[in-house]
């Protein structure tokens, strides 16, 4: 059996009478980019929210690195090495890009009950943060206020922050959301550079991007995974085409 970093088994989540996540089983292999695709409302973001600890599942288990993390808080999962980005841009808008990423480094660098030494002169935080900014091509924008850079750059900042946490695995919630063609292309390039170095679970709407990056695909429809396979096999799977891809990809 392959080496699975993240294993989701029999995950259930109901909101009222609606099954948002219905018996989801998922295994992400170490070092792979595993994409979850599905139509709007299929439960993709709900799935990410449960993996990151934002929402508690009704039942089922999530194993990360061989340990059940289903009862961990969001912060504890992050410290365990499971970093996420948000679909709706969720950076600290009034701070500079550098300050944002420095906080991300700080979060994975022991406790922060340090009351005296100024962060500005903390070379360890600064160097690591600049390296993460460079990895997404934002190092020349480090001193800009996050609110003042473009939407695409904010999305890149999201990824830089996730990288700065030195995670074992990235959960990316629609990193291309709301991006134009060019910006989306830049993001694909960034993620392709991470390929092989980092395990990534990617939830994405943009089919072309997913097909060009992912090692493996799972198709989520109505809270249920109807197929998990290689990119080529999913492309040719008639059930998937019917449920999701529709005419445009036929």
């Amino acid at each position, binding site marked *: 059996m392959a080496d699975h970093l993240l294993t989701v088994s029999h995950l259930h989540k109901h909101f009222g009478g609606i099954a948002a996540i219905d018996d989801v089983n998922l295994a992400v292999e170490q070092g792979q980019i595993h994409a979850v695709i599905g139509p709007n409302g299929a439960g993709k973001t709900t799935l990410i929210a449960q993996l990151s600890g934002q929402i508690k599942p009704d039942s089922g288990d999530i194993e990360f690195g061989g340990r059940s993390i289903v009862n961990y808080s969001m912060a*504890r999962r992050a410290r365990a090495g499971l970093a996420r980005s948000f679909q709706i841009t*969720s950076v*600290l808008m009034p701070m500079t890009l550098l300050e944002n990423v420095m906080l991300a480094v700080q979060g994975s660098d022991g406790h922060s009950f340090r*009351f005296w030494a100024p962060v500005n002169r903390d070379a360890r935080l600064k160097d690591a943060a600049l390296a993460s900014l460079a990895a997404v091509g934002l190092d020349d924008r480090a001193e800009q206020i996050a609110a003042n850079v473009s939407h695409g750059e904010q999305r890149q900042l999201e990824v830089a922050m996730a990288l700065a946490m030195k995670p074992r695995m990235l959960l990316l919630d629609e990193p291309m959301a709301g991006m134009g063609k060019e910006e989306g292309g830049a993001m694909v390039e960034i993620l392709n550079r991470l390929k092989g170095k980092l395990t990534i679970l990617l939830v994405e709407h943009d089919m072309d991007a997913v097909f060009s990056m992912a090692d493996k695909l799972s198709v989520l429809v109505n809270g249920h995974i109807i197929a998990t396979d290689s990119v080529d096999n999913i492309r040719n799977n008639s059930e998937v085409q019917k449920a999701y891809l529709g005419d445009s990809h036929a």
Partner: protein
Amino acid sequence: MKWLPATLAARVYALLLLVLAFAPLIFEWIDQPFYLDLLSRALILAIAVISLNLILGFGGMVSLGHAAYLGIGAYCVGIASYYDFYNGWLHLALALSVSAIFALLTGAVSLRTKGVYFIMITMAFSQMVYFTFLSLEEYGADDGLVIYSRSEFPEFISMDSSAGLYYWVFALLLASLFFVYRLVHARFGRVIVGSRFNEQRMQALGFNTYRYRLTCYVISAMMCSLAGMLLGNFTGFISPDMIGWARSGELIFMVIIGGVATFFGPLVGTLAFVVLEEALSAITVYWHLIFGLLLVALVLFGKGGIHGWLSRLERKVADHG
């Protein structure tokens, strides 16, 4: 000139601190000793407002119960003195530990809530303190408690003279300013400020924001209790009146007048508040009305308080010259 502070606001604050450092001499020179008492009271309140600004401004935790910690600090002096304990270190230890314990217990509950609920619950806890002291017949109940002798610190200058007490207050004010400055720029402060902007994001970065905010709340309460200890010494009298929620509201106003989440805002805000209160009440008995209208105008039009106004003024001058 490199040694000059860079911004207009910083120059104003530097000048202000210089004046404050020599205030006892200045007031003696113009033969107005009463003003030194007024200034002492203002600076004591400023320490309380600095502590409130730490959680309200930098941390985004709007507490409407901070006056409770002024009261706790003052009653620690008052009740210890009532039993003939005048040792200042004992007063200090009491004020800091009692406030820390109370803040830890009430903060642990309050910080489970957000927004308006946090405001209401902090107010409820402070009213609890208020009514407790109101019902304690032994310590004067609503008549209050007279403190006959000031805290004794044999190692330092005595608080007994007006100037002696003033320099105690001034020194602790400087310490508070410096402490908050370092705190906000340290790793801890970054977490506190980040949690104000986007708490969920901070959790996703691995921070247990609840623990950091609770710690910040306790630190702020202890600082405020320190101010309360000084206030008890200064007035020589403590009553539940000091604790009511209206007092907490005044502290919030002082933060807003000076400039929320700025380092010197609480100091200038408190000075402006106390001076205005004093000046208006000397003019007319209906001063509350004018004062209220002024506060409303300030909140509506004075964006960023006095600090914000100084910064805008500088930009305007720079644009024209």
